[in-house]
């Protein structure tokens, strides 16, 4: 299920998960890493061949030292699509990956066949400041990420193995994820996406969690206003919908993809 590829020219390694069957769909994970969107990836895999790369700096994917902007990240993704042999891409992403997917769709318009952005970062509204996911203690972070901090999804996100080596590995994985995310999102995630969103030409679905305490309703309405003609769906979840409501989220994405390709 996990594959490694080498990007020609740079020699960078890309680790990706390929799972399921059907029309290919590329999935870009959120700030905390691919492991926290696997329930959604598996749900999507019932109807799609999901190709989910670890973004640079995550998993075994390297090259982060030379990724200084979302522009660099879009070019990286374009190289990845070449390597996995996808010509026109159905692209979906969550949170950090949602911003990355939107950036790609605004830049590589002809190659983007469809965009699904789930609770995407990338904007900043003074009237609705985003909580600082990099500056919260674990308990406070859980309370903003999840609709219900006592839910199974939240428990899984915070679970600690009794085995010390496994526990340390999980701590390092979390740290590695945030190091990579902070490289592009620090100190605020507004890196100019608002100047580019109007360029998105592919059919676009924006998915928001009904109880999202990070990208709440102000972000939903601003994003919709900037991506003209975008469809919108709401799922019963907080910000971490790939963990909190994987089946419902997969359903809205699949339905949108089916309608767009019909």
């Amino acid at each position: 299920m996990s594959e490694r590829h080498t990007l020609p020219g740079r020699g960078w390694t890309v680790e990706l998960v390929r799972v399921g069957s059907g029309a290919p769909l590329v999935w870009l994970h959120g700030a905390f890493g691919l492991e926290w969107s696997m329930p959604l990836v598996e749900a999507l895999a019932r109807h799609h061949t999901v190709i989910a790369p670890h973004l640079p700096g995550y998993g075994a994917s390297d090259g982060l030292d030379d990724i200084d902007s979302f522009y660099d990240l879009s070019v990286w993704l374009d190289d990845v699509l070449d390597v996995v042999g996808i010509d026109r891409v159905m692209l979906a992403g969550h949170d950090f990956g949602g911003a990355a997917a939107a950036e790609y769709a605004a830049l590589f318009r002809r190659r983007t066949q469809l965009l699904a952005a789930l609770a995407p970062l990338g904007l900043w509204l003074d009237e609705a400041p985003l909580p600082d996911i990099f500056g919260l203690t674990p308990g406070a972070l859980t309370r903003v990420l999840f609709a219900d901090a006592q839910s199974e999804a939240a428990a899984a996100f915070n679970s600690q193995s009794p085995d010390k080596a496994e526990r340390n590995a999980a701590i390092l994985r979390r740290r590695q994820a945030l190091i990579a995310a902070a490289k592009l999102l620090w100190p605020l995630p507004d890196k100019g996406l608002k100047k580019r969103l109007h360029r998105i030409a592919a059919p676009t679905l924006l998915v928001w969690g009904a109880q999202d305490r990070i990208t709440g309703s102000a972000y939903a309405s601003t994003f919709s206003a900037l991506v003209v003609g975008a469809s919108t769906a709401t799922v019963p979840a907080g910000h971490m919908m790939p963990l909190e409501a994987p089946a419902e989220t997969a359903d809205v994405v699949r339905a949108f993809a089916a309608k767009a390709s019909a």
Partner: protein
Amino acid sequence: MKFMFFHLMPYRFLPMDFPQRFPSVWVDIPGDLFDPAKGNQLYNEYMDQLEHAADVGFDGICVNEHHANGYGLMPSPNLIAAALSRRTRDVALVVLGNSVALYNPPLRIAEEFAMLDCISGGRLVAGFPVGTSMDTNYAYGQVPTTLRDKYYEGVKLILEAWRRNDVFSFNGRFTQLRYVNCWPKPIQKPHPPIWIPGGGSVETWDYCAENDFLYSYLSFSGYKRGKVFLDGFWDTLERMGKPRNPYQGGFVQFVAVGDSDDEVAEKFGPHAEWFFNKTQHVYGGFVEAPGYRTLNTIKMGMESQQKSARIIETTWQEMIESGTVIAGTPKRVTEQLEELARTLNVGHLGVLAQFGDMPHDKAMANIQRIGTEVVPKLRHLWDDTWTDHWWPRPMSGARLPKPVSRGLGSAA
């Protein structure tokens, strides 16, 4: 052995129930807790204390940089150093230091330090800290992942700007300048001594050892816990075949002097307790941004079980036992400081003689007793074997400031 009086400049009027009412003394400390009129009082008292230290026998006076911090009122240590340079004559001005990655372009530091060195007649020590995560990442918005690379690049630019007299271009990853031209230049050639205040990271030991910079371990946790970090530095030097010159090391220590243990405890204990209980109250989310330490450093920390030197004790008695505070009669303090110097093998000691909410009179008295009853007894340490290559070399015949004008019509 050189002694510096080191001032943090705490805001000593925080409410008594600060830790219960507010999440953090740093980064998001509420602005309305700062009373500018108290600021006027504190800055002037604290500069009086620094000048007093120069008068009573300290070799250097030391200031540092913090941002949005309730126990450090010096976002710009250079302003304080500039004021001190005109009110002192031969004491070293140890600016420990300027957080290089925060200045755009970092050439600004080369210029300001050169100004300070000129004004003071060559008395400047140039400190280049990376800066804490609270200061650099949270208060000043620097990307944690690239902070260290930006810092190293900035130090390189500063040193080159001081060394070279030609106008050159600098094509860095973080700073691009078509014309680099540091005007003025420092008095000390090729540049003032470079001190690197650091925590316990392996990278800093290597950096100091490779470049012949002084390594100063900065923490508030006392010399017993600091030993492992200085040892790491000395071992690094030894591996490179370089001498273990104590003058290449520095350390910082809380010190209090009185006539008896009981008197010292009564006089100074509450202020030390205030410092640790109030001002070390930092919100957990701000302690370390992702990328502030590399994954490798974190991994090594896990493997070696090396605890970051966080203070845990809260009472005076615990602080004395753990070595966090060295306190007692002048004789006893002298013995312990000698033990500290020999244990850590350090030739420069920053003495925190005002701490917490210690009022002005008490601080002045403590500074005076340390300067006159302790420092002279220890100054000879190391001098028979080692030369201090990391101390300022002032020019001869420097122009000195005139006696202070009292201004506004009063007698000078």
